[in-house]
């Protein structure tokens, strides 16, 4: 079962081609200590961000979110702070592959940038692939690939491989 997504919009990244390394800042990209990463997360945008966010909050982004040469620390920090999903106009392919592999929901939702503002309440229905903002505005999202749904449902690559892929014998999946 895919878990419901329901949370506050903790930030709206209005920039196109947003470089996610800026979430912790380029100077902090080599930090590995998760507490230190949490403490610097988003503070270039809002110094209270690490204190103000709570588990289940989500982020909203623009077109080609995750562009550039993304590193892991920014999303490690966001996940540790409880951020549960990102809804964006579209995602950069490299970033999408990396984070979906962690079982983290990234959902492409055309129109979200204009429709959502900070601290709005947002919910997502996996069956209809629809976002509802403040129980008023409804937006249809792009079709989510089955592999992405599976990765999110099973919680990342390793459980997905164990539960979904490796249980099928090689001969039955066309591997000679």
């Amino acid at each position: 079962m895919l878990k419901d997504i329901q949370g506050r919009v903790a930030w709206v990244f209005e920039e196109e081609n947003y470089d996610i390394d800026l979430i912790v800042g380029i100077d902090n990209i080599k930090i590995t200590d998760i507490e230190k990463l949490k403490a610097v997360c988003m503070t270039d945008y809002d110094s209270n961000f690490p204190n103000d966010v709570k588990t289940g909050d989500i982020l909203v982004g623009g077109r080609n979110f995750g562009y550039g040469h993304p590193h892991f620390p920014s999303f490690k920090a966001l996940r540790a702070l409880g951020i549960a999903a990102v809804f964006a106009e579209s995602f950069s392919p490299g970033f999408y592959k990396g984070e979906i592999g962690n079982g983290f929901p990234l959902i492409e939702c055309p129109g979200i940038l204009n429709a959502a503002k900070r601290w709005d309440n947002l919910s997502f229905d996996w069956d209809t692939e629809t976002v509802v903002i403040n129980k008023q505005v409804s937006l249809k999202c792009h079709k989510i690939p089955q592999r992405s749904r599976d990765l999110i449902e099973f919680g990342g690559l390793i459980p997905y491989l164990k539960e979904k892929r490796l249980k099928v014998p090689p001969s039955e999946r066309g591997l000679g």
Partner: protein
Amino acid sequence: MRQTIVEKILSRNLGSDVHAGDEALFTPDYITSYDYPGYIDSYENQLLNELGITHVRHPERFVLFIDHFNPAGSSQFRNVHLKTRNFAKNFGMKLYEDRGIGHQVLAEEGYVVPGELIVHFDGHVSTLGAFGCYALSMRNSIIEAYATEQVMAVVPTSIRIELEGKLDKGVGGRDVFHHLLKELGPAGCLGSVVEYGGEGLANLALDMRLTICNLSMFLGANSSIMETDDEVDAFLSGRAKHTYTRVFPDEDANYVKVVELDLGSVEPTLAAPPSSANIIPIRDVEGMPVHVGYLGSCASGRMTDFEHAYEILQGRPVANEFRFYGVPTSTEIQAKLAKTGLMEKLIASRVCMYYPSCDFCYGQLGVLADGEVALSTATLNVPGRMGNTKANIYLASAYTLAASALTGKITDPRKMY
């Protein structure tokens, strides 16, 4: 329904017709990776300890490379290399070490032929699209390929770039890519494969095509792929491990868009900090002092790049206090530079010729001082890329690099003939 090149490749791979948007399980011809802390060592750990996998069914489909932290500057990194060596040995996978950058060596060793599907964690594997294969970056999802030898993927849409004409003197492959990036924007090919073809393709040396394909991620692209021709056949002759046929799309294949590009309209440009997408014409920065040059990486550092540099240098020494690192992408290129005498000529022009390695590209070697400005033919110019967030990196062609090295200032190569 008619097909693009990538639709044809994936249909053949699957054994039944697929089109953009279809999701299916594909079987890569090769699964490849380079050694870097947190990558192959993690895959080994995941296979053995989390998935309980002690062997792969087709070890001959795996090719690994030691090209980063090479030669190792500390035992910490050498220990990672030896762990990777041991992993390859235990799983029966081919490992190349001290041969150069994997994305190049994979082609030199004949693994790459038109029509194949190749997967890597790294995005610059798109370089190999110049050989008419679909080279897909999977990031950390590559563990899926290690564990199952298959990948679940959505067939990507394609954007067709129809090339015509030929480049002016002093204009390189990097400028062609920058021109497209300026025209289309960093989201201009979002999620699509950039498919190159047309009469102009024959006017681009294979090495320039490799540069263009290498950089496809900066168009937001899934990968790049090119039609193949005599030049590709000539490179593969005597190397190719498999027979192949040339790849072309069907005439009325379905594209997101078709873009015509007259190579004669391309001019020297630079990618200015802080992003590879920040393309500016050379006139905007002409005369700006530069301190360090780097010709190399998987985006450059091939014979044609060194030939372009020497076409400008012509035996003249680089400016005083300018450091110019020349790093051949592979030992095959290094040997060819030596054999043709070009190595000696470049050294006489005070180019510091180095051993093939990835290490200059990401700040492991030849790091920049505070406030220095580098001109590079490599992959990226994000802050800190060459080891210092207080330095600036501009990306340009080998022509522009050589012209600027002679004067110590950003210089239009067309003025140096």
